[in-house]
């Protein structure tokens, strides 16, 4: 036993300093924790950035890039991004009258000559009226010497001149004139002429297209630049960038609103069903099974009729309604399963025993615990809704021309996939990026929102 000196101070009560236990880090709510874990997932964060970018692209884009998506630039049809835009000012097109403007013929065997300087308005060719009365004229973009073919037969003519206006682009064309016998059989003595075509535009057209102002003093022969299309144009000369922006509005509208609406409907239905349980649950779930069996495309057509949507009008609203009415059972089943499980948990019983009302139990315990499933379902339904819109527009049930949508643009682009790949590639790329981004985000959200993984690093 050790002796100790005790003083009265030792018998003073301790002063409560209040801090019994200090938490070094702030308390993490469910959402904060999920957000923390989401931020640690680079794939999910990149997807989130991509989605933000896409939303900005379709919503702010049209305000910055003020081009009418249905305006047709017929001077630049189907051009690829970065194509040459130089154009020369020329007199307006006048039909050619060779009697009034006779050409000096060349000294080749047929007298085959380029009568006037060639431009994209017309290539005017003349030849000697003597010899064969009938000639066939070919046009090729490759030198016939190397390919062995004369190319495209343009015309068979009795008159010794021809004005070619078919789809002329700037570049070199090889015209070949072949004399024919009276029976229309080709004879020898064909003459080939290489013609360099330059792109021209008349002053009136240039004013109309806004390339020069009305009071600007310009001269013929002056070089101008045609309107700029950063991503090229489609088969009717419409600006791809503007169409992608406006098309994305339709695609993303359907892609975001439809899942939000039908998942909400499914959550309400599923939680009611799961909460009630028993016979009511059975009846409600059999009705959900019935809805699953309804054919989507048929209902889409039916809604189009019911809505009184005539031909040539947009089918976006019936599409939205059909999706909401027919696609809710999948999330409803998921949520019902969760609710059934949670209902039996100890903390729910505890909450009830402590006097929690139904609304409190549902709001405090059940919904938050299903939130992960719900959010993940929404993100996974977004790509599927975008695909549905693309598919319906692809088969002509979606938007009406000239309104673009990414799916409809793919449908148009696929026809010229081999010659003008950019018309298919850009919308297809955007659909793919959107779908991938939402999928990866959904993946990340599933990991982040899983309550059982809470706190696990």
């Amino acid at each position, binding site marked *: 036993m050790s002796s100790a000196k005790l003083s009265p101070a030792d018998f003073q009560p301790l002063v409560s300093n209040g801090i019994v236990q200090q938490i070094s880090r702030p308390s993490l709510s469910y959402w904060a924790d999920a957000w923390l874990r989401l931020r640690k997932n680079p794939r999910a964060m990149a997807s989130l950035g991509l989605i933000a970018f896409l939303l900005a692209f379709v919503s702010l884009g049209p305000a910055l890039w003020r081009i009418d998506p249905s*305006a047709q630039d*017929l001077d630049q049809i189907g051009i690829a991004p970065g194509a040459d835009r130089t154009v020369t000012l020329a007199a307006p097109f006048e039909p050619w009258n060779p009697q009034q403007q006779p050409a000096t013929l060349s000294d080749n065997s047929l007298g085959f000559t380029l009568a006037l300087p060639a431009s994209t308005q017309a290539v005017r060719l003349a030849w000697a009226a003597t010899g064969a009365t009938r000639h066939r004229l070919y046009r090729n973009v490759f030198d016939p010497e190397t390919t062995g073919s004369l190319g495209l037969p343009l015309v068979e003519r009795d008159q010794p001149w021809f004005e070619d206006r078919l789809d002329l682009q700037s570049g070199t064309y090889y015209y070949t004139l072949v004399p024919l016998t009276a029976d229309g059989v080709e004879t020898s003595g064909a003459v080939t002429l290489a013609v360099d075509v330059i792109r021209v535009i008349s002053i009136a057209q240039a004013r109309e297209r806004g390339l020069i102002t009305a009071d600007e003093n310009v001269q013929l022969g002056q070089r101008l630049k045609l309107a700029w299309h950063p991503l090229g144009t489609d088969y009717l000369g419409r600006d791809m960038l503007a169409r992608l922006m406006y098309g994305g509005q339709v695609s993303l509208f359907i892609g975001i609103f439809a899942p939000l609406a039908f998942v909400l409907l499914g959550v309400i239905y599923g939680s009611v069903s799961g909460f009630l349980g028993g016979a009511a649950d059975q009846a409600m779930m059999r009705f959900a099974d019935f809805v699953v069996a309804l054919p989507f495309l048929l209902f889409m057509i039916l809604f189009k009729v019911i809505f009184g949507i005539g031909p040539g009008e947009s089918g976006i609203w019936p599409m939205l309604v059909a999706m909401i009415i027919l696609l809710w059972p999948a999330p409803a089943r998921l949520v019902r399963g969760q609710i059934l499980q949670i209902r039996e948990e100890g903390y729910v019983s505890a909450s009830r025993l402590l006097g929690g009302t139904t609304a409190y139990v549902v709001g405090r315990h059940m919904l938050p615990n299903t939130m992960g499933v719900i959010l993940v379902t929404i993100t996974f339904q977004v790509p599927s809704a975008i695909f549905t819109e693309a598919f319906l527009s692809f088969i002509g049930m979606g938007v009406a021309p*000239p309104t673009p949508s990414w799916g409809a643009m793919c449908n148009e682009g696929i026809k010229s996939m081999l010659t003008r790949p950019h018309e298919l590639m850009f919308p297809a790329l955007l659909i793919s990026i959107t779908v991938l981004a939402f999928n990866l985000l959904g993946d990340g959200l599933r990991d982040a929102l899983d309550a059982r993984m809470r706190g696990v690093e």
Partner: protein
Amino acid sequence: MLWITLTKRMSPNRQLAQFFLLAFAGVALLMLTLHYAGSALSGTTSDVSAVDEDANSISIIIREEPPQLNSSRATDSISGMVLGHVMEGLVRMGLDDRLEGAVAERWEVTPTQATFWLRENAKWSDGQPVTAADFIFAWQTALKPETGSQYAFLLFTIQNAEAINQGALPASELGVTAPDPYTLVINLARPVPFFDKTLVFPTFLPIREDFYNATNGRFGADADQLLYNGPFQISQWVHGSSMTFERNPYFWNQAEIHLDTIHVPYITSDATASLNFFKDDKIAITGLQAENLIEAMRMGWQIHQHRDGTVFYLEFNHRQGRPTDNLNLRRALQLALDMDEMVYKVTKLPGYEPGVSLFPGWLMGEERLLRQEYPPQKITPDASLAKQHLKQALQELGLSEPPSLVLLAGDNPISNVQSEWVQQTLKTKLGISVKIDKQIFKQRLAKMTSGDFDLVLAGWGPDYNDPLTFGDLFASWNKNNRGQYNSPELDALIDIAQSRLQPAARMRAFGDIQQHLIDQAVVLPMYERGVTYVVDPRVRQLKRRVIGPDPDLSRAYIDVSGE
């Protein structure tokens, strides 16, 4: 499991990359397997090559299968093409595009009667002779109301034919007699100067009565439900997949046919598939689209062109209460739409000619081409004049702003492009908004008939080689006048063209009809269609036609000397 342990140790990104690689390899493997499985299973068709010199055969492709081959009910061009190879009528179009005798050796047409003398060596594919009775039976069958032939009206030039078709007279009352088995005498209902030219249409082909009755209503439904009298007979018809034509040993003119077999190994309307079959040397002829032209030139193929005679136009709905009933509105559209721009810049297909008249350029007039004798007035597009007409139209219609119009169009790539061009041009030049109503052919025809449109993209191919096949289109009584244009003035002109015997008077009437259609803007001709195609260079005498079977291989032969 090695795989699982491996993936467990990998980072998620590596895992994702590996998954992509695996999926890609899997898909590639699946495609390769399916390709070999597919070619192994469809061995019969892929053996056939485009041109087979040893078997003396040629392979071609058809867009779709003929619905049936009963000549009295055939309407489409594919049936016409097949029937042109396996059947022969009284007359046919020769290789020089002139009318020549087929079953008929010679003939004579007077204002009241047409007489045909049939060759005695013309035989059916069972060896029996083709007689005048076979023609009479075929025509009576086509006219019977229960047959429901859509082209029965072509026979209305024959006495009593119209009454029989309406059910007022029995079929036996048709004004056609056979004084002996090889003479056919036709009493005409009215003078028809071009009667012999109409006979090339399939509706006039012969049908033998005993065989027809023996088929129990399945006549023409299958290869063995048809009796042939043409250069070829159908030896095999696998519905939806392939057909084979073989030389008919009983055909009277063996010297003129050279091929032993024509294969149709594929039936598809897919232009890209058709081009690929040609590239793979599976078929001897294929059409080209605007997108394929550069490639065809690069491959050094000999490209051919053929104007198929069809005129396409923008037809108005002239029914009362429709805005398009107003002449000034139609005139505004006529002045706003620049068909040159559409053909040269939008459609961009070679061989297409901008439309200036309802009468295509190839129609013969009295001595020269009709369009040379009566050149149509060319409309110069003028946006400001168009606006003036629109203003006037709005006043007359009592509207404050331009009406919205419904444009009925077919559902194919070319009409899609054209209708969107019309939509945008009218929007920018006149402020008229246009709704595009895309429909498949049958539905479009139904809507045209019921008048459920303002504008429609329509076309008309010739049935026989006379300007009247186009000239009577907008007669008030014509069922093909879908917009129901009704003008006594035009009807009077058509009456002259139909019944006068002097070619000069008829051609003048056609010139006047052409002018009337332009003045009243009854219809806006858009273009005359051309076909661009490539043929295997070893195939000779393959004939493309405006009237008759197209393409026609019945006289074709293989020549390898050019190789």
